[in-house]
């Protein structure tokens, strides 16, 4: 690897660590001009930064806002490289596609967003539908993007029943076990998850990543 290239990859990683979307986009553009294969820019450059922040977060050294900003910078860089990837007919290999939502009638957002952030940082391609999402929206999106996992958040005892409704609907449409379902939120327990026949449950975002990896059969990744 040329010295110039090595420096560029290092700068890319650093832009993610700094959570600086402007610089990460600038570097992505520069790599296109330099005819660097977009997949290289991602895996040898930007992803190194994401992994570093992820590790630091796991160690309790990095704070949540740093993780979120790293995620945003990564997203921006990948979006810049996406057209090049498409031209080459290449696809970035991800851990899997996840549709994430807080169920209908429920506006609690933070926990779900955190789960999404952590999943993205761990290599999943996350489509976050937001809060107050009815079953048909969640299921429709999962079919549309060919998701391997649907994740549902519910923080209210009055809305946790919606998780069951979505699962029942998915079963009716024969979407499972191909699409796995994971659930979470303040009143959700392992017993509840078992009762509604979800494929998994986690009490926090770190556990959600481990769970998602298990569900897509990449538990040791």
């Amino acid at each position: 690897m040329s010295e110039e290239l090595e420096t560029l990859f290092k700068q890319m990683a650093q832009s993610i660590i700094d959570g600086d979307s402007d610089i990460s986009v600038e570097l992505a553009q520069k790599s296109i001009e330099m005819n660097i294969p977009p997949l290289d820019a991602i895996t040898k450059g930007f992803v190194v930064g994401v992994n570093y922040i992820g590790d630091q977060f796991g160690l309790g050294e990095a704070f949540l806002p740093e993780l979120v900003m790293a995620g945003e910078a990564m997203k921006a860089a990948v979006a810049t490289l996406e057209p090049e990837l498409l031209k080459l007919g290449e696809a970035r290999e991800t851990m899997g596609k996840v549709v994430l939502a807080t169920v209908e009638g429920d506006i609690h957002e933070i926990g779900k967003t955190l789960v999404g952030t952590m999943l993205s940082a761990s290599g999943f391609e996350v489509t976050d539908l937001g809060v107050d999402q009815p079953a048909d929206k969640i299921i429709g999106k999962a079919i549309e993007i060919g998701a391997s996992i649907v994740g549902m958040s519910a923080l209210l005892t009055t809305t946790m029943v919606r998780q069951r409704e979505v699962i029942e609907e998915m079963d009716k449409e024969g979407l499972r076990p191909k699409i796995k379902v994971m659930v979470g939120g303040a009143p959700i327990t392992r017993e509840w998850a078992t009762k509604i026949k979800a494929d998994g449950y986690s009490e926090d975002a770190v556990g959600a990543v481990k769970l998602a990896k298990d569900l897509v059969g990449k538990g040791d990744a």
Partner: protein
Amino acid sequence: MSHKTIKTISDPKLKLEVLTKEEVQKIHEATLHIIQTTGIRFPSKRALEIWEAHGADVNYEKKIIRAKPQLIEDALKTCPPKYVLAARDPQQDLPLDGNHVCLGTDGCGVEVIDIETKEKRTSVLQDVRDIARVADATNEVAFHWVPVSAQDTPTEARGLHEIKAVWENSTKHVQTESIYNVHEAKAAVEMAEILAGGKDNLRERPVISMMQCTAPPLGHDGGSLDAALIAAEAGIPTGFMTMSACLTTGPATLAGTLTVGNAEVIAATALLQLAYPGAPVFYAAAQTSSDPRTGAYTGGGPEDFLFGAATNVLSDFYNIPLSMGSFATGAKEPNWQAGLEGSLSTFMASVVMSDMLLGCGFLHGSRIWSYAEMMMDCEIFSIIHKMMQGIVVDEETLALDAIAAVGPGGHYLAQKHTRNHMRELFMPQFLDRRPYTQWEEKGDDARDWALNKARKILKEHQPDPLDEKISKEFERIIKLVEKK
């Protein structure tokens, strides 16, 4: 009001200045600036129409309103500064007049540590009844929040089953945060009218009050807004609670989070006044800081304690009563952390004379109800109640005669002055002052004593029953909602 049965903090001798006048003015101006420029989300057709009718700039697509400072300030002028939270037993009415701090139970929990088995389990309707009955018997609990969710009742009418259960098991005032849709709000008003004896009587003596959460940052929930408007129309005291949290739903700085939350509460309060001028309203808040490492809800820590003291300064500025989150803790069992967070949060909220404190009994970030925790929280409140009386200095308390009689050396145990005043000293129920060996032998502590006290109350205490005819009426109303 009778202080015979309810212990409220009044005529405080301690003071604390957490924000200066100039600082409050700055927060107020920043708040108005936010409402005018960034705007606040009101996802309710009814709310947006009210704003438009009063000249606010309304974006129906984004459901965001922007209002000039004058509109907000004028609207807030019609808030009544004082009113009463009525109880089924008029002797237990609570004056919200700036000179009383009233403790409530915490609310809307999802699990209970069973009073007999001590195992953690899902909360049910019987828990709502039992907790109400225990709270009814204590002097410290002045009013109820619906403590836990009755998860064995149908979701469409759960909030109604809950208030019925509390009314049937206590004569104290009931406040709920579990009614956040039109159907249930209308039915709750109807139930309250029956209990108060008619629409006009309910206005006079609101036997229920309602709390709605804002949706930080700078937003509201549509169901909550519609429910609040229905309550305000009926003269039921209504409050909006901000729970904005540093890092996630609020800026990382305390002043920033205070201001964001203030904008949410003030805008919604103004809405209620525009719709129903003079409707009784209160400010409610439980701001906190998210954990920087995980984003977890903390419900405790120094930021919470400061918010606890600062918010009443804001609500005083607007001249409306405050309901302040206190006793919140992230502790998983009644322990050091629970005692620390409960004491400091409640002290800070009390020393500035927050009108309502919410509330005792919870663990694990407002999720798990514990009777032992409830009883120990009550003792913390009693200690703070005592501290707030401060030190009285007068001829009698200086005790010069007794001092002269004892002289240098000797003791005060045999002095009349001592006998006259000794019962003013605080008598704890749950502080361990036993000899070491006794503690060693028994191996028990405050948690056991507190739990036993709750068990005894539950076995023995029978509150004045609610008229059966009224219960039947309640049932009929609830059935109708369930059928919808």
